[in-house]
């Protein structure tokens, strides 16, 4: 049974206290969360000492890297010997679950703290802000009121699963004043066990607060808008060229995507290279051909890999130098594939990814 507790402090300070406690009591060897770097930026960091914890900013409204991707780098070769606390957003947690199904992270060693998520700003908006205080204030206001905030990532405003699934602790941010005493939900035995020595007061709260319900409704509407913002599927091939024509093939969207799981990307491999006569031949057929071509091939191909597990985090859109509205393409196509398999990525740790299993009697309508 989930229990709701009140911390004496704000979300930021309260969670820092918890993490410090966990480090001090050696419940975990380290904490993985956002932190101000020495050079004055904000990035994920692996923090092992409580002085450094002071510089952490667990709920800074930005996702410079997707934590699931960072944690894959951290533990793909070999998971840690001791448990680690992580502070991640719900979509990052869902990506972690997907990656664990793919054998790239080990969830058993993670103590997961997540949030009811008001969203994040695009990386550049936040890191390059001229008036960071104003950004912060605007963020806290919309979080408290459970509102859409137009400056946030488009995918955040359209997010379906902003309450974390399967976190040990959920910190309530939506509908809350982030500066006053915060409420946390203890979801698991592990949470109660880890925090058993801390003095926490029970609170009267409801995760499905009015603000959460109203935010969900607004976001559902925004999602519809986002999904219909592209000229797809109606404009067909021309629509795809319209949307993706600007792509410079930097593959940044692939590099930052938590789900892109291939260790050697097909599109970086020799299989994806061809001698000049192939292009000459294509130019002959078409009159002329773009070089390097295969832009659509890359994107459609990438969807065949990530579609089933895309969590709509928006990392890809933030990295795109051509500012292509990628989640409208990836998240939407991904969701259509997910819906077909009645699969919600990151929802159920024990459910296999749809392409790794089958039923003998199914999908008859796809056979001919």
């Amino acid at each position, binding site marked *: 049974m989930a229990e709701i507790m009140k911390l004496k402090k704000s979300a930021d300070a309260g969670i820092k206290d918890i993490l410090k406690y966990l480090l001090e009591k050696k419940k975990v060897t380290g904490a993985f969360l956002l932190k101000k770097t020495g050079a004055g930026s904000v990035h994920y960091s692996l923090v092992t000492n409580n002085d450094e914890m002071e510089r952490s900013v667990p709920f800074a409204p930005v996702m410079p890297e997707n934590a699931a991707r960072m944690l894959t780098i951290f533990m793909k070769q070999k998971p840690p010997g001791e448990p680690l606390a992580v502070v991640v957003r719900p979509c990052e947690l869902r990506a972690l679950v997907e990656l664990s199904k793919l054998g790239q992270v080990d969830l058993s060693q993670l103590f997961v703290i997540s949030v009811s998520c008001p969203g994040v700003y695009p990386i550049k908006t936040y890191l390059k802000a001229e008036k960071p205080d104003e950004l912060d204030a605007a963020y806290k206001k919309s979080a408290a009121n459970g509102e859409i905030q137009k400056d946030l990532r488009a995918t955040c405003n359209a997010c379906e699963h902003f309450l974390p699934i399967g976190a040990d602790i959920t910190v309530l941010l939506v509908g809350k004043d982030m500066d006053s005493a915060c409420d946390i939900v203890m979801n698991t035995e592990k949470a109660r066990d880890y925090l058993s020595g801390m003095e926490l007061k029970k609170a009267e709260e409801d995760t499905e607060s009015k603000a959460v319900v109203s935010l969900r409704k607004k976001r559902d509407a925004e999602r519809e808008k986002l999904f219909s913002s592209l000229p*797809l599927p109606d404009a*067909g091939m021309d*629509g795809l060229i319209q949307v993706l024509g600007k792509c410079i093939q930097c593959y940044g969207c692939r590099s930052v995507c938590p789900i892109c799981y291939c260790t050697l990307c097909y599109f970086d491999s020799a299989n994806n290279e061809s001698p000049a006569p192939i292009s000459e031949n294509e130019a002959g057929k078409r009159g002329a051909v*773009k070089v390097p071509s295969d832009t659509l*091939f890359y994107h*459609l191909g990438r969807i065949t890999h990530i579609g089933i597990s895309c969590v709509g985090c928006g990392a890809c859109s933030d990295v795109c130098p051509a500012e292509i509205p990628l989640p409208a393409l990836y998240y*939407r196509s991904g969701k259509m*594939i997910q819906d077909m398999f009645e699969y919600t990525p990151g929802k159920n740790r024990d459910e296999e990814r749809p392409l790794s299993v*089958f*039923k003998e009697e199914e999908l008859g309508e796809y056979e001919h």
Partner: protein
Amino acid sequence: MNEEFTPKIVGFLCNWCSYAGADLAGVSRLQMPPSLRTIRVMCSSRVDPLFIIKALLYGADGVLIAGCHPGDCHYMKGNYYARRRFAMVKSLLEATGFEPERVQLSWVSASEGIRFKETIEEFTNKLRKLGRNKAAKKVFV
């Protein structure tokens, strides 16, 4: 539509069933439209979704994946996985408006020469109605 237009179909045929079925159709001298370009694969599950997308982008009018009937796969379960992947690609094509009608999954056994012929005929006619794949002429792919 131009009556003469013969669509180009890239057919991935499973070695153990459909390829043999095609062979049977051939030796039985069944008449078929000259639309098929065959690629023999060891199992329908060998067909990487990327193959399908690449064939379409490079101008194939249709892509056929043909394998053993469910339950008959030489490798026991290959075609069940293939069916899931196929469904995935098809919904991707639906989502992006890339004419999902251009791809087809069929089960044809080694003894079904006639069924093979009919499959090719039907798919060819369907593609004739659809017309040429516009991707074949696009410059900015």
